[in-house]
């Protein structure tokens, strides 16, 4: 008899694990039995996530990391292997946003969004893949977005980065599957997180809800559980898929 999804004995790296969707993913992976390596810039938030994971009886290592730095990312993966005894799952979740009218977007902001959202995926995937290839085993889940499929004004850098993420996922998936490494993406729509609270006003939010067939934003847990499925061996025949979790937003 099979029970709940089981990730016992697996070690997962989650970037952007200090809050929001990343934190929910880290906790859900731990609930399934995985040990966690938590990466983000803000140490205090990582410590909070680590506490929750310890409370679940799982190991958690917090590694303050700038995911746009090649050196720091390589350090992160090395620590996972050396201190946790292995590396099996990578969740590329770290992301940012710098909404602005096109003519007002600074080059600095454009670079920051593309670096944090897209280049970080390249750096983390490359560094982790070296271990995964040796082990002939690995699961990589990239956080894309419905913003990578449908356009909106005043946020070109974000849309470009997330569209890039979807095709990055597929290209890497077809390259790495020969080493038994599954690479897939998850595309959330509107989710109740601090990032959304920061950029979306309450009034705008209720008018946005009208465009979602399910008539509500997602709870971060509703994004985290599909990630657990993709991190498990149950999804072994899914290769380069972009699993959209948006309450029907892009269907309408």
């Amino acid at each position, binding site marked *: 008899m099979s029970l709940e999804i089981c990730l016992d004995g697996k070690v997962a790296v989650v970037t952007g694990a200090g809050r929001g969707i990343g934190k929910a993913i880290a906790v859900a992976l731990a609930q399934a039995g995985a040990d966690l390596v938590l990466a983000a810039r803000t140490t205090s938030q990582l410590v909070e996530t680590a506490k929750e994971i310890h409370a679940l009886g799982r190991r958690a290592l917090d590694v303050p990391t700038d995911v746009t730095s090649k050196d720091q990312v390589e350090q992160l993966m090395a620590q996972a292997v050396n201190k946790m005894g292995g590396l099996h799952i990578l969740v590329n979740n770290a992301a940012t946003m710098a909404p602005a009218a096109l003519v007002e977007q600074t080059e600095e902001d454009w670079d920051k969004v593309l670096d944090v959202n897209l280049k970080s995926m390249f750096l983390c995937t490359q560094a982790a893949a070296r271990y995964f290839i040796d082990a002939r085993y690995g699961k990589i889940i990239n956080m894309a977005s419905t913003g990578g499929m449908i356009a909106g004004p005043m946020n070109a850098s974000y849309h470009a980065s997330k569209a890039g993420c979807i095709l990055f996922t597929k290209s890497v998936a077809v390259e790495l599957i020969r080493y038994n490494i599954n690479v897939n993406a998850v595309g959330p729509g509107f989710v109740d997180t601090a990032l959304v609270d920061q950029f979306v006003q309450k009034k705008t939010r209720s008018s946005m809800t009208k465009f979602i067939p*399910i008539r509500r934003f997602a709870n971060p847990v509703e994004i985290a559980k*599909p990630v657990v499925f993709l991190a498990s061996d149950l999804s072994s025949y*899914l290769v380069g898929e972009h699993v959209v979790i948006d309450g*029907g937003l892009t269907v309408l």
Partner: protein
Amino acid sequence: MRLKDKAAIVTGAARGIGEAVVYRFIEEGCRVTLCDMDGDALNTVAAKVKELGGSCLTAMGNITDRNFVQRMVEDTVSAFGSLDILVNNAAITRDAILHKMSEQQWDEVIEVNLKGSFNCLQAAAIPMRQQQSGSIINVSSTSRFGNPGQLNYSAAKGGVVAMTRTAAIELARKNVRCNCISPGTIWTDMLKAVTESVLETLRAGIPLGRFGDPKEVAELAVFLASDESTYLIGQTINVDGGSFMI
């Protein structure tokens, strides 16, 4: 258990993907109505369900018969107390290239694969709307992207995706989810009829380098049937070893 106390209907349950879905649902604590035209094969699957300690009903009949479908839904609800999951899986093939395809070959495939799926979808939605919960899983195919010799089948399977999206939007406000599985080349009886040289060509087109196991499709069905996918609405997910990353 991920489907504890839920009740499901699985069509095309006597073999292949449908049969694999049945066993995984039973293992996850679900009660299942098994629907198929082949009564003998259906009874064999039902016997295996009993061996696993599960509970099931059998519904032998044709999903193109709307009265039969209606009765199956009613019987399921009265036996299990609810209908929480429909796996719209039954399908046939009548392959022929365009200039050799008969009108009958076209009609039969559209009648079973598209109209039959509509019949089951419409009938299952009635109790699900009333109870304001449910998960409908349609089964398409990567043939929807185009597959020589399968004009009828690919048209029907493309139709299933469009039907999924529309039903999903309509049913979302009633908390009924509708999603779709799009399997690639899965090792089932449908495939076992194909010659070895064709199999070799098919295998070469799969980045993963092997055919899918029906169980791997069943795992995706469990995920979509469970409360792990409550925010997935109207999606079609390929389970194809990377063959079509569209």
